[in-house]
């Protein structure tokens, strides 16, 4: 309703990977997500931004069932999340999640972090799991650290491993929850570079971030949230041009001015 029409898309890309309809969530009396409607098409690269407390992290945590919600549906191709969360397991299998604080398993090596779900969820034999994990570790440019423990890595390296770990399960959609917010400035670039490469490979991405440079370069669509609402959903080009919603304009001016 507040959102503008999404940008034109080709017929091939028009099948939505995820469709969110009338999503509402309350934390007690606090209404944190208000009537969210959002379609994520195959191959879409969506950046979700907005002031803190606008509900953007909560939104993507709802998509993979980490947060329950009280109203609305999130439809995947083979699963539908609703307030009862019955399909949570199925829905979750289609998503990969990268957290702000990496959340690598500290007692496991980098390789074991990546192979754990391959072996326990996809039931791959050890050798095959390791091969798949090494492919993804190579893709995030950190294969040489396979035998290291997370504590031996820098924040940027840990986050790249976390991206590889999520990719190992071959998710249909990758969710990023402020992946660079916990990083020192000099490490942000290496993580963004990996995400840019990922975007180039056609992976469907929904990314909550304040990195507007990244958004401008990579995002096809921008979702701007404020006070639990999607205030604007526009193509990246439209969003960064003068046509944006005044609230989004104000937000952009604030964060781009320093």
């Amino acid at each position: 309703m507040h959102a503008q029409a999404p940008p034109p898309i080709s017929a091939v890309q028009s099948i939505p990977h995820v469709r969110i309809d009338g999503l509402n969530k309350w934390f007690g009396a606090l209404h944190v997500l208000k009537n969210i409607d959002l379609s994520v098409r195959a191959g879409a690269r969506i950046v979700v931004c907005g002031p803190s407390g606008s509900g953007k992290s909560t939104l993507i945590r709802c998509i993979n069932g980490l947060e329950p919600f009280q109203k609305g549906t999130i439809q995947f191709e083979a699963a539908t999340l609703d307030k009862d969360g019955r399909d949570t397991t199925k829905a979750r299998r289609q998503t990969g999640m990268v957290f702000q604080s990496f959340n690598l398993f500290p007692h496991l090596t980098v390789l074991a972090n990546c192979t754990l779900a391959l072996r326990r969820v996809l039931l791959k034999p050890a050798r095959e799991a390791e091969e798949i994990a090494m492919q993804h570790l190579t893709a995030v440019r950190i294969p040489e650290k396979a035998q290291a423990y997370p504590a031996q890595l820098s924040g940027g390296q840990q986050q790249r491993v976390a991206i590889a770990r999520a990719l190992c399960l071959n998710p249909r959609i990758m969710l990023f929850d402020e992946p660079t917010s916990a990083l020192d400035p000099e490490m942000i670039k290496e993580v963004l570079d990996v995400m840019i490469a990922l975007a180039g490979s056609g992976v469907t991405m929904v990314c909550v971030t304040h990195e507007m440079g990244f958004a401008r370069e990579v995002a096809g669509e921008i979702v701007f949230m404020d006070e639990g609402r999607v205030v604007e959903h526009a193509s990246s080009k439209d969003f960064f041009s003068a046509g944006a919603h005044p609230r989004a304009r104000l937000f952009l001016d604030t964060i781009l001015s320093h």
Partner: protein
Amino acid sequence: MGFNFDFALSTIPTIIGAIGMTLLATVLSCLGASALGFTFEMIRRGGGATGLTVRFLIDFIRSTPVLAWLYFLYFVLPFYGIRLGAMTVGILGLSLYYSGYLAEVFKAGIDAIPKGQQEAARALSLTRRDTVIFVIAPQMLRNVAAPLGNYLVSILKATPYLAILAVPEMLGRAFDIASETYRYAEPLTVAGILFLALALILAYGVKRIEQRLLGAGRR
């Protein structure tokens, strides 16, 4: 009749002969208490009516003397047709008693694991069981190594309680010698020193294990 050093020395082989029983009781009670304690904590964590019951049970166990448990299991259960051997009752009693404490230790160990770990496991579609086995338990063990080791030593020092059930462990054997010879100082001193030595060795071993656990992949 002062302390007879030679007599003390002569009691060592007999008392040391019971060291196996003491260690067996310690190890089995430790395993039993850990398994029960972990199970209790998992059930308590699950919440609901069962969780509440177990929570009450843990508090009940912790608020009663271990000697009462041993007497109860040994002398009262047979009234209800349950007859168990002295050693079985001893290990059961110590396991039950210490499980209440270990449940608290495990709780602290799990509470100390950052919430993000469970979220990452869920995001990777791991089942609850796999999450416990591969993500929570290993990190919990590292967090609880020190307190767990302390309880291990505590359990070692609690095994003499089994003497009241006539389990032939070290202190019981020392008492046997005392009642045969009417000399208490020597066998009890020897038993005391042997317990001290065992406790120190155990404590050292626990410390080494703790250091190794902390060494690998610290956050």
